[in-house]
């Protein structure tokens, strides 16, 4: 019999999971003639005993209450704290910010083009707000770009072109 064929028996024998009479006979027959598998059984037993001797982790006080509090929250966000590691989840939350930036940029355009307006709009001009056109900030000032596309670009480093720099200078 091949060593590979008795590995599963060795695994179970090592933690006293119990073998049938037939399995026991097969394993014993192999072990008598195979020093490698005898050593493997020894190693498996040793590791199993070490892990059995590992002391359990204590539960932090108030664990069940913390779970209950999370379940109690009616308006629990769909994304858990674990999803912070997922950029798609947390950047989606930035979409409104991007939208607000676009609106601000539009306001800026309006203010610059209609200086005669009676109620002075905030004096935000492109000279004030633009960064070099190859930066993410310049891309945010393109009113035509969608928030999703911008965020995707910023985060993946494949920014859409900010267009002709003359437009914003």
């Amino acid at each position, binding site marked *: 019999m091949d060593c590979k064929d008795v*590995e*599963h028996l*060795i*695994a*179970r024998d*090592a*933690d006293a*999971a119990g073998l049938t009479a037939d399995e026991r006979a097969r394993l014993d027959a192999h072990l008598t003639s195979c020093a490698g598998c005898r050593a*493997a059984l020894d*190693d*498996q037993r*040793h*590791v*199993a*005993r*070490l*892990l*059995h*001797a*590992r*002391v*359990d*982790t204590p*539960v*932090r006080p108030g*664990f*069940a209450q*913390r*779970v*209950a509090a*999370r*379940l109690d929250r009616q308006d629990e966000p769909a994304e*858990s*704290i*674990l999803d912070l*590691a*997922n950029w798609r989840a947390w950047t989606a939350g930035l979409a409104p910010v991007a939208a607000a930036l676009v609106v601000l940029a539009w306001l800026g355009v309006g203010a610059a083009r209609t200086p005669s307006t009676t109620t002075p709009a905030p004096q935000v001009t492109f000279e004030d707000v633009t960064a070099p056109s190859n930066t993410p900030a310049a891309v945010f000032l393109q009113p035509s770009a969608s928030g999703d596309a911008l965020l995707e670009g910023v985060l993946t480093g494949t920014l859409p072109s900010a267009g002709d720099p003359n437009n914003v200078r």
Partner: protein
Amino acid sequence: MDADRSLVEEAAGGSREAFDELVRRYQGQIVNLARAMTNSDDQADDLAQEAFVRAWRSIGSFRSDATFRTWLYGVALNVIRTHRTRRSRWLRLFSSDTRDTSSEGSPIDRGTADDGIERPLAMRQLIDRALAALPVELSEAVVLRDVEGLEYQEIAAALGVPIGTVESRIFRGRKRLRSLLRPVKGWISR
């Protein structure tokens, strides 16, 4: 047969009291599982909480052909696996080389049992560090068997794999742990 049956049925019917009782009943096992799989007290607490939140959300889909305990372990392992996968992706993203730092060399090399920590705690730390260095499919099989004490049949159900796969993963997992845990040799035979 399943000691949790009536509680589970009540919880599936929307009883928070019943579910809270299940949380109290299993919190120790799930926190311990998460600790062994992440080598971090903070992550263990977070992930165990998340496991119970997901269990509550999906308890309606629980089918009694498995025990609640087995099903809950399955839910928790999904949470832990997702966490470990994301974590290693981020480590790859932000480190100059592509190795997962948790599998760098022998984990024992980076810690010592003689640094003043009480022996059982130091031993747990060394064991969990070694477990965290294994591929997740090997560590979860070994942890369920040798740390949590599940039967092979239960492990197969929790992982959704045949029992032969469980045996093979346990064999290979222990084999890798044997060298990672060499410094701990003799601690338990004294």
